[in-house]
């Protein structure tokens, strides 16, 4: 473990390492945030969408006449009308196509069938109920393996070359090497489990206000977008409108968690409607619409196997995945990686052989597969390996912590080349685990567990020592629809020494207005309060790929540090000019240059900023401004160990979290308060996945989990208390050594909670319960184990 000596700046500058209170909070605590639904434009109309009640059907007819005749209804839009403008289908961020409004068939319950534009949102919703659609129902598929069975109905018959329901077959690693490792193994441990479908469900649903100026042709769309620049380009491609006339404004975003990465039909319909009618159109979905139609996450049927030798060393890993993609392949993930970054499944452990096969299939369920608070399927991967490792430890007869210790990648092995092609940048897994075990008093807990078992009480200790891969990513491997996954920062230092920083990413609650200002404060010594951060307006920020997959700090954070340093070098020349010294003779400390050896002879960064506009050296360009596009040389690899202690009630299957210890290593922490906030939120999401949160479908494709009474998100009452700590192992290639942290806890913690429950029942022979670990499932597992 390396430690760094932040903060290096005094509190009045407030650089890296200070828990600066957030700049953005002033408006949020006064109800003055500006979310999409808060936008009111003159003459604005309201849109509501009619959605399919059935999961798979031919559309025989759509009768809009009664709706159109209602007072206040301005227009009813159907797929037929959209098709006349070549807008009935749109591309997805994964290179598939998705229906904007159905023309031929509906392929999932909740699919967009028609839209009403009216003078008032109540009238729009009334009119939706007056559109009559005749459906001829078709067989429904709700499972990816069922989708690939012989004779299964072909869901995407709209695609000429599609003869079955396969979306992709994808593999990673070395099959022969892995087969040899398994042939040589003394033991093989396997697990088969389903990571259930869940939904990010940010508290603000998705929506848009589209405002097309019929005279100038300017298209402004206020949109719940985590990736406004990429969305502008998609809009230009879909509509054929000139990109310079399209302005995407992503105002305050009420949580995203991956849900606001895709382009949704509602955005496109509202924009088309505004274009056709010549007035602004607002569309804001209901919670049910959000849950049944927008980007879900997970729904991964996973098999995993570990080959072990008799001493407990892992020799290899094999995994096969069936991914339920829903009716359209609308994951938002790097083009090259069809199963996202699932091949990080080898985890925190050192072994030479791994082979991963993934199959994606269409089903009659909502499309998506977004990265819900994770970097493209890293959550599923982390869950599988951490579950396997615990079962392997039981198989070998070792304590799960000691088994991990034996197999961890060692600090001196970094940069570590994983068998599936990642180059882990830095880590000290043993140190993070020892710290977590120490805080938990692991040895004592094991004793308590033993004693409790003798009294018939079921206590379990679960660990997860996860490694994430985040910060997509370098242009050699990472793109979305061909757009390389760099990101950008534009820094303008004004004559009075105040600054504005504009970014290609978009915060949805992560606190960018504060943390990115802290990076500038660190690098230039400008007080953090003097720096304004602007994001989310494509007319006023440099191009970037957006905020998801924990990429803001690794990519845009790096861009911010680099542009700050470039301006500091220019500032050095100006300072030398002002002090009539050589630039090489100047020393920098946060906020000022001084002449080496005469610390009282100095100029401040504010003096330099003023000179940049008033008194420049003769051969230097005026201004102190610049933009940098950062193409990351590698991904970053945050890690940590979580320890969960549970007690399971053997009579009911109810389990309670007694303790949750989380030691995270995300490299250098820019704002420790915000980092901890991110981890606390993620640990809650992980708990939700383990305990309660899932979306299922009945055999007819009806969505079970279409509101917050069926889809359970934790309240303060259920949420466990957390004990947080850290180790700090900087990323060697990131300019400030940071790795990203917004998703570590969602990625790492589900396995820790589940492992704890399994550990409580392990002596009975229980090795798996699928998430969520509802009491009836736990109770049944106990009963089945007792029956033997």
């Amino acid at each position, binding site marked *: 473990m390396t430690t760094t000596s932040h903060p290096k700046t005094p509190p009045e500058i407030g650089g890296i390492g200070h828990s600066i209170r957030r700049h953005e909070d002033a408006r949020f605590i006064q109800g003055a945030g500006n979310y999409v639904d808060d936008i009111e434009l003159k003459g604005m109309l309201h849109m509501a969408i009619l959605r399919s009640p059935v999961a798979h059907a031919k559309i025989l007819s759509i009768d809009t006449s009664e709706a159109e005749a209602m007072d206040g209804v301005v227009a009813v839009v159907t797929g037929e009308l959209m098709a006349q403008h070549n807008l009935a289908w749109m591309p997805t961020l994964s290179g598939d196509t998705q229906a904007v409004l159905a023309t031929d068939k509906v392929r999932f319950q909740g699919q967009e069938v028609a839209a009403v534009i009216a003078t008032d949102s109540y009238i729009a919703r009334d009119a939706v109920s007056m559109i009559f659609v005749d459906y001829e129902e078709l067989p429904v598929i709700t499972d990816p393996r069922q989708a690939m069975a012989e004779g299964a109905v072909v869901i995407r018959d709209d695609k000429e070359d599609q003869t079955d329901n396969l979306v992709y077959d994808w593999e990673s690693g070395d099959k022969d090497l892995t087969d040899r490792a398994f042939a040589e193994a003394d033991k093989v441990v396997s697990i088969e489990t389903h990571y259930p479908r869940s939904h990010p469900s940010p*508290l603000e649903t998705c929506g848009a206000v589209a405002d097309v100026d019929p005279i100038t042709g300017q298209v402004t769309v206020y949109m719940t977008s985590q990736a406004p620049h990429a969305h502008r380009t998609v809009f230009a491609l879909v509509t054929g409108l000139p990109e310079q006339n399209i302005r995407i404004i992503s105002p305050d975003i009420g*949580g995203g968690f991956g849900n606001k990465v895709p382009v949704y039909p509602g955005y496109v319909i509202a924009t088309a409607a505004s274009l056709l009618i010549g007035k602004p159109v607002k569309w804001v979905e209901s919670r049910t619409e959000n849950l049944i139609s927008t980007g879900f996450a997970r729904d991964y049927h996973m098999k995993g196997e570990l080959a072990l030798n008799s001493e407990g060393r892992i020799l290899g890993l094999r995994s096969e995945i069936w991914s339920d993609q829903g009716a359209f392949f609308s994951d938002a993930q790097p083009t090259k990686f069809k199963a996202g970054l699932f091949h990080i499944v080898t985890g925190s452990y050192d072994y030479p052989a791994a082979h991963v096969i993934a199959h994606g299939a269409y089903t009659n369920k909502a499309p998506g597969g977004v990265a819900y608070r994770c970097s493209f399927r890293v959550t599923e991967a982390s869950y599988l390996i951490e579950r396997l490792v615990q079962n392997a430890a039981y198989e070998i007869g070792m304590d799960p912590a000691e088994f991990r210790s034996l197999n961890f990648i060692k600090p001196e092995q970094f940069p570590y080349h994983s068998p599936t092609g990642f180059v882990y940048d830095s880590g000290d897994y043993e140190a993070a685990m020892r710290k977590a075990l120490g805080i938990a008093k692991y040895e004592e807990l094991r004793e308590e567990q033993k004693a409790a078992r003798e009294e018939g009480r079921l206590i379990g200790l679960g660990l997860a020592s996860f490694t994430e891969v985040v910060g997509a990513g370098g242009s050699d491997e990472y793109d979305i629809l061909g757009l390389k996954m760099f990101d950008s920062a534009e820094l303008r230092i004004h004559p009075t020494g105040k600054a504005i920083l504009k970014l290609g990413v978009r915060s949805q609650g992560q606190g960018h207005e504060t943390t990115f200002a802290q990076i500038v404060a660190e690098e230039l010594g400008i007080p953090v309060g003097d720096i304004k951060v602007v994001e989310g307006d494509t007319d006023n920020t440099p191009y970037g790929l957006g905020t998801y997959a924990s990429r803001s700090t690794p990519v845009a954070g790096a861009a911010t540090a680099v542009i700050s340093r470039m301006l500091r070098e220019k500032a050095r020349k100006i300072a030398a000019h002002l002090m009539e010294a050589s630039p090489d003779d100047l020393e920098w400390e946060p906020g000022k240059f001084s002449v080496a050896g005469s610390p009282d002879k100095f100029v401040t960064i504010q003096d330099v900023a003023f000179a940049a506009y008033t008194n420049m050296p003769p051969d230097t360009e005026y201004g102190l401004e610049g933009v940098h596009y950062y193409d990351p040389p590698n991904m970053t690899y945050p890690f940590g160990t979580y320890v969960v202690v549970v007690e399971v009630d053997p009579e009911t299957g109810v389990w309670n979290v007694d303790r949750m210890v989380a030691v995270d290593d995300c490299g250098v922490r820019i704002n420790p308060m915000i980092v*901890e906030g991110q981890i*606390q*939120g993620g640990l809650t999401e992980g708990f939700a996945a383990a305990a309660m949160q899932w979306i299922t479908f009945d055999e007819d494709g009806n969505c079970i989990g279409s509101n917050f009474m069926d889809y359970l998100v934790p309240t303060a009452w259920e949420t466990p208390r957390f004990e947080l700590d850290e180790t700090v192992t900087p990323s060697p290639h990131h300019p400030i050594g940071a790795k990203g942290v917004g998703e570590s806890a969602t990625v790492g913690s589900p396995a820790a909670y589940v492992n704890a429950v399994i550990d409580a029942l392990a002596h009975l022979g229980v090795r798996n319960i699928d998430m969520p670990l509802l009491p009836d499932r736990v109770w049944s597992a106990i009963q089945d184990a007792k029956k033997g």
Partner: protein
Amino acid sequence: MQINITFNGTAQTSDVEPRQLLVDYIRGTGATGTHIGCDTTSCGACTVLVDGTPMKSCTMFAVQANGKSITTVEGLKQNGDLHQIQASFKEKHGLQCGFCTPGMMLTSAALLEENPDPSEDEIRWAISGNICRCTGYINIVKAVQHAGEQLRNS
């Protein structure tokens, strides 16, 4: 229908459709700090104080507020100063995306009115009708404790 309400301390008379939800009425006045998160009374983003009691305004008709006093987040400030609960939410990092924050603060402020020194369990129970998707609640609990402490000492 005509309704008379006291909205953030100011008496106002309005004509409303009988079916208009209170939350839509409030937002229609331009006070958009009251949010809509779920439509099913589950999330609490639309919480306002009706005669001092936290109510979910997505599940009340505007006409039901006739003759009552409504306080929204815009009415929390007193004499131009932040209410202590607002200051404490910022101080303790009790918010991230800010969408649940107005409802969460109003519920918390009402709790502190009734119980100036709540235990952690009492706070968690009181805010259990308000969902936050970002924070995991730990810092919200700390913010309420901090506000209680400051108010007791003031």
